[in-house]
């Protein structure tokens, strides 16, 4: 028997898409029945009360979670988000409903053994509800009480060999695509880079010392499956410098209909016979490809590696062998002065395990600048706008390059420095007046 009537939420049980309401109800019933005799460390009816407070929000059109609440584990400044219900008397099971961010393994591969340990822990000390995964990448434990936080952290670090993720003004949990593990487009090992830098910067991840949040994301190629260019302060996108490799026989395979274009991604509709000229050659944004009916040619020097031809004919075209990454900096969501896309800083950088010294040098130069000059709650993308792209080049020691801009400036208001101008700026007005009367 449900603890609270939920006539509004019940209407979200119909329809084909998996219903979170059905799932929370399932968990509420499971906790009531408790077939495994778990000694629940937080209220047994936590899921019932979550449904109750959520139903109230559906009726009121407003949230019923209080603002903030500083809780955490000793010595860390992030990883736990305090949350309290604003109607604790009505819903005591969710009076405290804190979240923990658990740092996911890079690429989000798991074994059922490890996930089972996490599930057992969360049954025992939490609500039994999770996010798989949160937007930044963490596995999120959703809803526990303050006395459980240290206990959960103890079990995570001692028994599960895993750590919390980031929150607040620190390095947020880095994330990556699955990269070389299962993708032929990956230009570097995104998982290893992500894992290595996550471990390298544990102090920055757990102890807030930055002006605001800072996110790393690692995309293996310009398709950008983890959206690093839009969602990370430091976006590393795999690329290559040499030629796209062509298997001419496989190209013919696509042309004569033997292979489905775009790996079969369009099979749900009849788009007609594959037309290499219409679908690849003419669509190429740099017009660097040609097809003479027999041979596909690419003027690789003119290619900017958009991936369209490779995506369209993955059996025939392969990424080049001189691989590395492009670094773009400063993406953020709209708060406050509008959204920003990441801007190109390093056109090509080698991504070399095990130390990733090249990446670390760029990261640490950026951090030194931002920690010195950034205002409270100023993202690095905003600092670049406030102090200028040139300042970022200066602090990173990177030379200006036409690739840095989509176009040169359309105004002549150049902030010349005194040392740039012959003779400096100090002049004698009397010398000037010897030639020019008042």
């Amino acid at each position, binding site marked *: 028997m449900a603890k609270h009537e939920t006539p509004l939420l019940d209407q979200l049980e119909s329809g084909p898409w998996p219903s979170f309401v059905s799932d929370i109800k399932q968990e509420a019933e499971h906790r009531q029945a408790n077939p495994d005799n778990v000694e629940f460390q937080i209220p047994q009816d936590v899921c019932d009360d979550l449904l109750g407070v959520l139903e109230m929000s559906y009726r009121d059109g*407003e949230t019923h979670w209080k603002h903030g609440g500083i809780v955490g584990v000793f010595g860390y400044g992030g990883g736990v988000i305090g949350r309290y219900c604003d109607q604790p008397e009505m819903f005591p099971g969710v009076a405290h409903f804190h979240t923990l961010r658990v740092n996911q*393994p890079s690429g989000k*591969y798991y074994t059922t053994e490890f996930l089972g340990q996490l599930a057992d822990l969360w049954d025992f000390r939490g609500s039994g509800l999770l996010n798989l995964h949160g937007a930044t990448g963490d596995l999120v434990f959703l809803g526990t009480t303050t006395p459980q936080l240290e206990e959960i952290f103890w079990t995570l670090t001692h028994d599960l060999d895993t750590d919390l993720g980031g929150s607040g003004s620190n390095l947020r949990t880095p994330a990556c695509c699955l990269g070389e593990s*299962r993708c032929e487009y990956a230009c570097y090992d995104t998982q290893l880079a992500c894992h290595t830098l996550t471990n390298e910067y544990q102090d920055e991840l757990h102890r807030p010392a930055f002006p605001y949040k800072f996110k790393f994301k690692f995309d293996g190629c310009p398709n950008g499956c983890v959206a690093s260019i839009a969602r990370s302060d430091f976006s590393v996108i795999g690329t290559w410098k040499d030629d796209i490799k062509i298997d001419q026989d496989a190209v013919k395979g696509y042309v004569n209909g033997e292979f489905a274009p775009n790996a079969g991604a369009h099979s749900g509709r009849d788009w007609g016979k594959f037309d290499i000229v219409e679908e690849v050659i003419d669509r190429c944004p740099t017009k660097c490809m040609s097809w003479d009916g027999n041979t596909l040619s690419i003027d690789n020097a003119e290619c900017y590696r958009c991936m369209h031809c490779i995506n369209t004919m993955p059996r025939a075209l392969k990424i080049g062998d001189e691989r590395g990454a492009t670094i773009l900096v400063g993406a953020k969501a709209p*708060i406050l002065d509008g959204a920003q896309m990441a801007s190109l800083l390093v056109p090509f950088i080698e991504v070399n395990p095990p130390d990733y010294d090249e990446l670390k040098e760029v990261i640490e130069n950026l951090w030194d600048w931002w920690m010195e000059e950034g205002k409270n709650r100023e993202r690095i993308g905003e600092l670049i706008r406030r102090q200028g792209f040139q300042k970022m080049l200066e602090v990173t020691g990177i030379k200006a390059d036409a690739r840095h801009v989509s176009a040169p400036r359309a105004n002549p208001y150049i902030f010349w420095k005194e040392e740039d101008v012959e003779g400096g700026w100090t002049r004698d007005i009397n010398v000037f007046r010897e030639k020019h009367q008042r």
Partner: protein
Amino acid sequence: MAFISAGYNPDKPMEGRITDIGPKKFDQFYPPVIAKNKGQWEYHEIIEPGVLMHKAKSGDEVYTVRFGGARLMSVTHLREIMAIADEYCGGYLRFTTRNNVELMVTDKDTALKLKADLNGRKFAGGSYKFPVGGTGAGITNVVHTQGWVHCHTPATDASGTVKVTLDEVFGHFTNMDLPAPLRISMACCLNMCGAVHCSDIAILGYHRKPPIIDHEYLDNMCEIPLAVAACPMGAIRPTKTEINGKEYKSVAVKNERCMFCGNCYTMCPSLPLADKEGDGLVIMAGGKISNRLSEPKFSKVVVAFIPNEPPRWPTLAKTIRQIVDAYAADAKKYERLGDWAERIGWERFFEKTGLEFSEHLIDDFRDPAYYTWRQTTHFKF
């Protein structure tokens, strides 16, 4: 419910403490076929919706069955997924960036059997537990934020609006019948903890009423200078106010300058914005993050406001349907929604989708606004 300690001693918090160990290393979770062929993949093929085959140089094949799920998931649901992974794939599984789950097997027959098994499981309420799909030129899972389930700043619910949206477009999740992938994302307030600003379609919770000022408590709850500094529009100033004969230090808000971002509330709990009538949804469209063909681009506001209509948000569902249907009917193969809108022109976008253009959709926020006005005679009647 007796308290059981895991070993932590609150009197000696540093005793036996382990910190800064980071996540578990990823490669211990690779299925054997992945561990063997990493970095040696030759090509891939989507053999049917939700089923990918990756071919390795070694000749090995891995078949991935992808299914969607609500990102809010219970351990009971997770344990059912784990039991399936144990039965079919040796106890290995992974999650995607967009909250899908992937199970990997090494032969096609098992993959198809697995797909049928997954599609056969339903919740008591009737919805699919593990719908297979989310591949290729279709609509994959909708990434989203916490909403009314767990957050203090939302202008709407996230899980509910996403459920309604995915119910509406479910046929495009299980079928690859669109011109290109169409990514929908949802953020329940402007903080966008799930950054949605570069999505083909973005659903964004938004406030429309300035903060209410809790004068009697504000000075105790907040640092007034921080609350003042939080406003990007300079609409907040320190003030003193008298209530029942007692003077309080507080703030005043110039309401006509407010753009309802909620940053003041983030800095000061005594400035709540949430309001049943004021809050609702903004729909943005035409963004992308891939570099394929065209550059990554921001989503544009195409509907200024849709009221909150829980539990099923019918106007939201109808609006999404209008956009998706117009795009599906008119775009060229490989053309993302934003590329389509730019090719036909935004004036045609509104015509074809049947959405109404209003003055709210003309940018008036700071300098970049000017660059979105039309400085040419190139337009269509």
